[in-house]
């Protein structure tokens, strides 16, 4: 009996401590804004999802405590979004445009939370936002670069997910501007943007048809594209410095996406109480934050193979986009597979 009383006393003390602890921790959590990202895959996939993880971590210097969930299946998106919003997160990011519909579904119940679809292409008032960079502008620049660097006047692009707006924009921009510069363009779509072996085969097939400059917008599969270029000694553009390291002599440049700036800019405003319900697209025409940039390495835009004259023309195109004298809106026909 005595033991039971003691146990009860201990339990009560533990309960009080637990309640106080929760109070203390939740109090401190409320004092700092929280941001979470939902990833469709694994955070260390060396690819798209790793980028997502980096995005949410980049919000820590902006004063956010961060969290992330991995391998969020399509069917679980709405529940995962709701869960974070319910926990008081002021920003809930979904690392793909496909999160938009789940966010639209959940957002009315959490009017003070900012929902952001990374690489989406639509928003919903008052608090569902999509953010992306202007894929058409950078695709166009790479198209000009490829056409000018090609000796055979045949260039190729390898992409996945035909029909997805940002893919259409980049692949279409590539075709329009490469053709305008006099190259024959072939575009191939592979079924899995993570399948490096398949991307390599696709690249081989283009090279066999005479293409001597390749580009692409792939995830983990980008490594296969660059590896094929290295083995067959043709030029290629990548998506990050990892690709420069694989073939330093052959990588012309990379379209390096600057998500921390794009999302950070919105996060700062959310912190001050502003909410966004639109699609925000960054590019050369949006001031300091361009959303992406052409980079061969941290301090150089182009690789050693790119001549000064070509570099100057490609950079002049950026200036034209910035001033508004050049605009491009590629269609699905521009981004079609084949020649």
């Amino acid at each position, binding site marked *: 009996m005595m033991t039971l009383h003691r146990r009860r006393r201990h339990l009560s003390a533990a309960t009080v401590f637990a309640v106080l602890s929760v109070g203390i921790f939740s109090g401190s959590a409320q004092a700092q804004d929280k941001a979470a990202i939902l990833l469709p895959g694994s955070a260390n996939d*060396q690819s798209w999802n790793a980028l997502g993880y980096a995005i949410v971590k980049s919000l820590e210097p902006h004063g956010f405590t961060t969290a992330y969930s991995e391998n969020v299946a399509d069917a679980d998106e709405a529940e995962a979004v709701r869960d974070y919003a319910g926990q008081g997160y002021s920003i809930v990011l979904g690392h793909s445009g496909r999160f938009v519909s789940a966010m639209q579904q959940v957002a009315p119940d959490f009017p003070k939370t900012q929902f952001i679809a990374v690489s989406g292409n639509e928003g919903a008032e008052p608090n569902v936002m999509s953010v992306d960079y202007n894929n058409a502008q950078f695709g166009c620049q790479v198209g000009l670069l490829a056409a000018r660097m090609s000796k055979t006047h045949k260039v190729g692009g390898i992409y996945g997910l035909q029909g997805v707006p940002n893919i259409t924009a980049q692949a279409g921009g590539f075709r329009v501007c490469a053709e305008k510069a006099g190259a024959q363009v072939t575009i191939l779509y592979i079924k899995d943007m993570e399948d*490096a072996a398949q991307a390599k085969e696709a690249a081989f097939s283009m090279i066999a048809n005479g293409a001597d400059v390749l580009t692409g917008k792939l995830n983990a599969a980008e490594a296969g594209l660059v590896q094929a270029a290295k083995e067959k000694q043709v030029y290629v553009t990548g998506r990050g410095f990892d690709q420069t390291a694989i073939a330093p002599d052959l990588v012309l440049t990379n379209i390096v996406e600057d998500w921390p700036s794009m999302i950070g800019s919105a996060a700062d405003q959310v912190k001050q109480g502003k909410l966004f319900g639109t699609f925000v697209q960054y590019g050369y025409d949006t001031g300091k934050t361009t959303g992406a940039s052409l980079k061969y390495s941290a301090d150089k835009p182009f690789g050693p193979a790119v001549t000064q004259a070509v570099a100057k023309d490609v950079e002049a195109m950026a200036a034209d986009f910035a001033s508004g004298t050049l605009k491009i809106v590629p269609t699905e026909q521009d981004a079609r597979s084949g020649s």
Partner: protein
Amino acid sequence: MIDFLAAAIRIATPLIFAALGGILSERAGVFAVGLEGMMLLGAWAAVIGTWGTGSEMAGIAAAAAGGAIAALAIAIVTVRYRADNMVTGLTVNILALGLTTYLMRILSGSNGPVSVHLDPLPMMPVPGLSQIPVVGTLLFSHPPLTYLAVIGCVLLAFVLTRTQAGLLLCATGENPEAVFAAGADPMRIRMLAVIACGGVAGLGGAVISLQQVGTFTDGMTGGRGYLALASLIVGRWNPWGAAAACLVFGAAEAFELRLQSYGIPVSSYIVQMAPYLIALGVLALLGRTGKLPAAIGKPL
């Protein structure tokens, strides 16, 4: 045309290893549904083994060991504990996906994602033969694991039909009671066959990660284990038949990539289905004409 056929061989090579492994397992009476997981662990182990030791041979050995470990799990659960072959195989496939991702994370520690890039295995042209016009380029100018796949076909065909071990293995898949009556241990034979299956399928994973790409990425086998499973069924559990089926699927994928280049007005999604539609079509045509090993899937 040579380029197209060379592409078919490249795409078929990992499938051939997995299909050969699958034949070992299925001829001994265990459905090889876990080929995908065995390949994936093999792909991971090949890259990490090479990266860790600096030796490609060690990486290839690690790939075989990785596949064999996945297979050991299947062997214990299905043979020793008599669990359903299909469910166990699928479970191991899912487990391998999670495990390889987790292991990459352990390697990365707290310093962000680990990025391993190796030079893929180099081409090894056969002296003299590789100089023969057309045939030389097509058949005798490949990296080492492609030749090993052909050697594997020869060896497995020989072992299954000309050696006592091979005949016992096939008998275990047909009539394990008779094997037992003859003084052999069918359970041990099945266990060893499944583990050997994993070792060979693991080499298929090494083809993708070590020979073709030079890195490991999550889920990089991309369903090839299932295509290999279809190949061994289409090939009627015969090494040469399965290899031929793998080549057909390889050719279908190579054709699919080239078909897009022609600019036919069909969605790329439809074109990308070609290898799988062919697999389905062939399986439907063959129907039940092929004879499964009589005791396959039946616990001992």
